[in-house]
């Protein structure tokens, strides 16, 4: 059994911050149907790396031709694994009528358009509710619909900058913020997109009631700024960056240290005296480790610059993974700053956990896709969902959705195709 069996999601989200949400429901067993049309493809379909030929946007094509090579993006394949996909032109009135028929047989509608798009199409919550009284409608926009910035644009880095996450990351002044080297708020935005849909599905199961949720990418970002707002409110303290040093408890050494090899680093966190002695013993207890300025946690914290320099001089001679193994065996928390290559090709724990699963795709073959990190003892849960497949090709499930679910005849479907509706 799959926990979300029988839950149908109409997925009008894009890229990752939206698209990752239905992906997670799909892993839990829901049926996510992604809706695109020729002029509004998910932009990740056009983002490399590709398997085989790249999308060709230059060649003139007739309106009824399928777009060229839009099913070959590796990133799209990872983010949309398990979903179904249909082509449906939402800008056409007849397309929107078909959409309404889908709403009537669905549980959740989620979109990440800018704020007024669905309302302008006559598809606001009141309309959706009149079609399906217990529908759940999550409007997942950048800044949220209600408020003075409704309609402002966002993607991961914007959310991270405004919320304070960017400013919180990096070395102390005079260094600028380092921020995040990826759209942290795309995955995290996707988590909250999934969370809100799941909470609303639970509530509906218990009460029979649907609802409208005004979601955003910015608020989850603010939600993740930790204790900084409270520290300001309670203590009047402004946030100051401290690099990789410990912020909540005295811990020293605490940081990343260069290892042998090109751009190789290891993180070490010493939480008590026993661990400090174990670390010193691994270094061969050099004279400096016995000096009073490093004798207690407080002393080491006070002399961190020098401590880091001395420790770093030692780690720089060490092969990173051997050092990690050695320190962990001695009871010291240590871990290499792993690259994607390290995680994919060698991390024995991730392999043990089956973090990548092979999923088939009709055009690019079978590729490893990141699995969800939750392991259920009873229910069947996994990326790829009930279909156990990778991302859908453009319009791959038109026959299933228009034929089996909506019972449109073959002639009717052909007419809609010729007219550029589906």
């Amino acid at each position: 059994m799959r926990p979300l069996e029988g839950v149908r999601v109409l997925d009008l989200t894009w890229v990752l911050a939206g698209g990752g949400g239905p992906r997670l429901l799909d892993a839990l067993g829901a049926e996510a149907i992604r809706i695109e049309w020729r002029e509004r493809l998910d932009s990740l379909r056009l983002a490399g790396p590709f398997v085989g030929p790249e999308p060709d946007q230059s060649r003139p094509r007739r309106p009824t031709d399928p777009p060229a090579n839009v099913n070959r993006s590796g990133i799209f394949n990872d983010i949309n694994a398990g979903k179904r996909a249909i082509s449906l032109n939402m800008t056409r009135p007849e397309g929107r009528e078909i959409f309404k028929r889908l709403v009537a047989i669905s549980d959740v509608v989620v979109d990440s358009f800018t704020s007024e798009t669905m309302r302008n199409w006559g598809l606001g919550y009141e309309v959706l509710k009149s079609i399906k009284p217990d529908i759940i409608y999550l409007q997942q926009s950048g800044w949220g619909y209600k408020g003075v910035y409704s309609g402002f644009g966002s993607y991961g880095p914007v959310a991270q900058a405004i919320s304070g996450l960017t400013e919180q990351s990096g070395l102390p002044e005079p260094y600028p913020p380092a921020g995040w080297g990826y759209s942290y708020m795309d995955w995290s935005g996707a988590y909250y997109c999934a969370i809100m849909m799941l909470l609303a599905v639970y509530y509906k199961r218990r009460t029979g009631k649907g609802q409208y949720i005004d979601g955003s990418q910015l608020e989850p970002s603010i939600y993740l700024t930790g204790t900084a707002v409270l520290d300001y409110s309670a203590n009047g303290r402004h946030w100051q960056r401290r690099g990789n040093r410990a912020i909540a408890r005295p811990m020293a050494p605490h940081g990343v240290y260069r290892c042998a090899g090109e751009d190789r680093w290891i993180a070490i966190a010493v939480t008590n005296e026993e661990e400090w002695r174990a670390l010193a013993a691994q270094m061969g207890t050099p004279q400096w480790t016995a000096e009073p300025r490093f004798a207690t946690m407080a002393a080491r914290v006070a002399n961190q610059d020098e401590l880091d320099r001395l420790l770093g001089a030692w780690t720089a001679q060490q092969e990173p993974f051997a050092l990690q193994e050695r320190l962990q065996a001695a009871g010291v928390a240590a871990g290499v700053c792993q690259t994607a290559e390290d995680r994919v090709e060698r991390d024995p724990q991730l392999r043990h956990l089956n973090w990548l699963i092979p999923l088939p795709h009709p055009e690019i073959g079978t590729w490893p896709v990141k699995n969800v990190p939750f392991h259920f003892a009873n229910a069947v849960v996994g990326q790829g969902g009930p279909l156990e497949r990778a991302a859908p090709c453009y319009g791959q499930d038109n026959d299933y959705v228009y034929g089996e679910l909506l019972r449109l005849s073959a002639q009717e479907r052909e007419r809609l195709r010729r007219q550029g509706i589906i």
Partner: protein
Amino acid sequence: MADGFLFDVKVLELGDEKGEFCGKLFAGAGAEVIKVEPPGGGPSRLNGPFYQDQPDPTRSLYFWHYNVGKRGVTLDIHAPRAKAMLEKLIARSDVLIDSLPLDTLSRLGLDWPALRKLNPRLIYLVITPFGRSGPWRDYKATDLIHLALGGPMMCCGYDPKPDGTYDTPPIAPQMWHAYHIACNQAFIAAVGALIGREMSGAGEMIDLPIHQAVAVSTEVDVPIWIYSQKPVLRQTGRHAVQRVTPQAQFKTADGRYSMLLLGITPRESAALIEFLTEKGFGAELNEKFKDPTSRRGPEFNACLTGALTRCMGAYGVEEIWREAQRKRISWAAVRLPEENLGDEHWRMRQTFARVEHPELGASFNYVGAPTLAEQCPWRTGPRAPLPGEHNQEIYGGQLGLDAEQVEDLRRQGVI
């Protein structure tokens, strides 16, 4: 008062900072969350910062933030008399969050089969650093170690030198994101299991290794490796990708920073050039790159970056980003977290909440709701429990012990 989403869900939380954020999400979504701490209080009460910088188990802002909305009991789960009490607490719960050291509950005779017998409808969520089995099972970890091993750090940091090497280390973004990342996904799994239980009637055990949760949450580095076997480069305030991309963070007139990623779409580039022209910084751009089709490549990027540097340097951090946003340019101030408190947009959406601390005679601003759901409003409060604050209420009211028995347990150090 309107129901929360999880109005009829009871959660029991055992453990430390690894699972605390998941309990916070449950409380925010309207569930009843009981946190079980050792007598005197749990380990995260020692995490700073502290109220008025006075370290004390009741003054940890860390504990306040991650435990707002929960109720608290104390119980020495290793004491002989505690097991029966723990069993009763588990029997009345829908969800058990366990982030205790590995195998703690099994050693007490409360492994999954035993828990299931106790409560066949229980959702048992186990949050561990690396998983319950495997070669790294017993590795020690902290937030920093997880962000290193899981991959975020190798994506975060500062630009390489012109020769492609780095003189700055990878950076672990603060604060506590390994636990945020893991608990967000743990919460997704647990609510999914609650939905599944509506149909199956049966409980579930969910194993969530933090290492795996972090490792799947970076963005393009893993697909780029899988599909093209290429490494990515750390870059200041922007995505780690295969090549060095144009600068995205600019100093403002007041010594702060603004951000803008170049080259998002041709429409946005055009809007940006128009905006820079209006502000008087577009002369060179318009002269050298009049033809829209010429607006690409390193020379164009250098010219645009120069114009942006001058423009951003002429205004304060909060001065013109909204104006740019109204022209559909994704320009943003790099704010301090607390600077959002005064913003009208968040006030209208009730993104922050005021929480009373009656014993201190004070109230404080907390980060409130991660979304606006008017039918099932997010709950922020009441404030985090004091150690054992709800012992009488829970042990007396719900487990049926009388006041004398509760006092006896307290004297013996069981609660």
